[in-house]
């Protein structure tokens, strides 16, 4: 089965032989790809059915909540921390980013860009919270409690003095440019590191 485009990018960018923690690893799809290329991948996942499925696939996954349980990992426990499509669901995304860069010197963070042109138009013309392919749930039921845009995230990194090593912007599964990302990217993937 083909990996989701953002996961494929992350899987390709984590070097073989490194140690990685996939925060919100689901049923272990990305971890399986990482292990296939020789990454020592471990996971944290909140949903027990997903954890069970991942362990049944032979992966090392701990059931836990990234809002609280990242604190249990020691500093620099990993080379990479990965948070894919989860940032916008956390209670305090800024603190989660701090935790990611405490337990690993580098982190991948991917999220749906709330400033994509389709969302802008939906708000502008419809006057309603948009329901899109990447944000498929109505406002009252969505787990995305902290919607974020590419520009917001860049600002947060700047405020925190966090370096961007690479960034990928996707419209569908096609890349889009850095300059146009704010309105053309459906989702963004950042590789960030401590300065």
């Amino acid at each position: 089965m083909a990996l989701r485009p953002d996961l494929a990018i992350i899987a390709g960018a984590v070097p073989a032989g490194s140690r990685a923690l996939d925060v919100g690893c689901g049923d272990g799809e990305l971890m399986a790809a990482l292990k296939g290329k020789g990454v020592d991948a471990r996971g944290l996942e909140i949903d027990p059915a997903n954890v069970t499925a991942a362990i049944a696939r032979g992966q090392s996954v701990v059931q836990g909540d990234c809002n609280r349980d990242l604190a249990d990992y020691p500093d620099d426990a990993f080379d990479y921390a990965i948070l894919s499509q989860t940032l916008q669901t956390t209670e305090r995304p800024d603190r989660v980013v701090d935790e990611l860069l405490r337990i690993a010197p580098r982190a991948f963070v991917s999220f749906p860009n709330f400033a994509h042109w389709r969302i802008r138009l939906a708000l502008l013309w419809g006057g309603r919270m948009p329901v899109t392919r990447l944000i498929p749930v109505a406002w009252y039921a969505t787990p995305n409690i902290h919607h974020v845009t590419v520009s917001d995230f860049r600002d947060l990194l700047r405020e925190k003095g966090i370096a961007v090593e690479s960034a990928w912007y996707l419209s569908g599964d096609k890349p889009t440019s850095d300059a146009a990302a704010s309105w053309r990217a459906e989702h963004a993937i950042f590789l960030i590191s401590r300065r």
Partner: protein
Amino acid sequence: MASMLHQIRHQSVTIPAPLPLDSGQRLPAVTIAYESYGTLAADRSNAVLICHALTGDQYVASDHPATGKPGWWARMVGPGKPIDTDRYFILCANVLGSCMGSSGPASPDAASGAPLGMHFPVITIGDMVRAQAMLLDHLGIDRLHAVVGGSMGGMQALAWTAHYPERLGSAIVIASAARHSAQNIAFHEVGRQAIMADPDWQDGQYYGSTRAPAKGLAVARMAAHITYLSEAGLTEKFGRRLQARDIKSFGFDADFQIESYLRHQGLAFTDRFDANAYLYITRAMDYFDLADAHDGRLAGAFVGAKDVRFTLVSFDTDWLYPTAESRRIVQALQSVGAAASFVELSAPFGHDSFLLDVPALDRLVAGALSAGR
């Protein structure tokens, strides 16, 4: 009757080497009764040790010689089952201090030949594990693919990772804890006092007599059995329903189904277990605290176990060894960088869930076992 129990012949080995105990005493020789299933691979890489719980035994997947009932984990262990006897060589030894053929309080004194009774030294979970390691040495098995256990079996699995991490590929610890809590000790003390208050206990020297403390042992089992079940499970199974009657007796018969059930459980237990063994094994559990030897820091116990793959499972209705105890172990493992998996499964059966039909547990155990291969 306990006396009948000791007539059963078990497959066992007597290792003439002394076993030094945590208490400072030593056993001059150790007898270990065990069962095995499957075939040991030519390179001896497929051995899986299953550790049994307090009142369990080595008959993990074969009929119990006293009761004739199927093995206590026959649903988990067998050809094509999660612990697959077609793939693994499975070993289960009766724990030190127990009553199914291994050295314990019913064993004879070396000098007099009389049953030791309370002269048998107090043993620990660590001592049980050292005896198992002696058995592996005897069988020529250097390294275990995995050690697996639920409840007290999980304590042994944890002790294995602390004492012999270099001999282990992985450890699967189900519904267990790295220490006995005050509440755990309290329930055990009730059980021990019930046994010792029975006049037939005779200070533990009842083996040669016509009387055995069956009443005390039955009460101990009744109290313990409640702790193995969940409140919701008891309510669903028994509620306030009356046993074989329509109205209350206004007496002290077993009016309620739950009373009748517990009495039956207590009585049946005395056919297959020895009261002194119950005293010794509960004591070993009470003394268990893996952090003890590391100034109270549990992580200290796992410093050597970075290369062991851990899988921990708890159950949401288990109040005897609740999820918080498994989480505490996971935190300690994460702090030393060991590969740990943990999940809390939802099952209605309380602590006993690890023995019962929980399909997610089957998938987990099978996956965790094959991951190390």
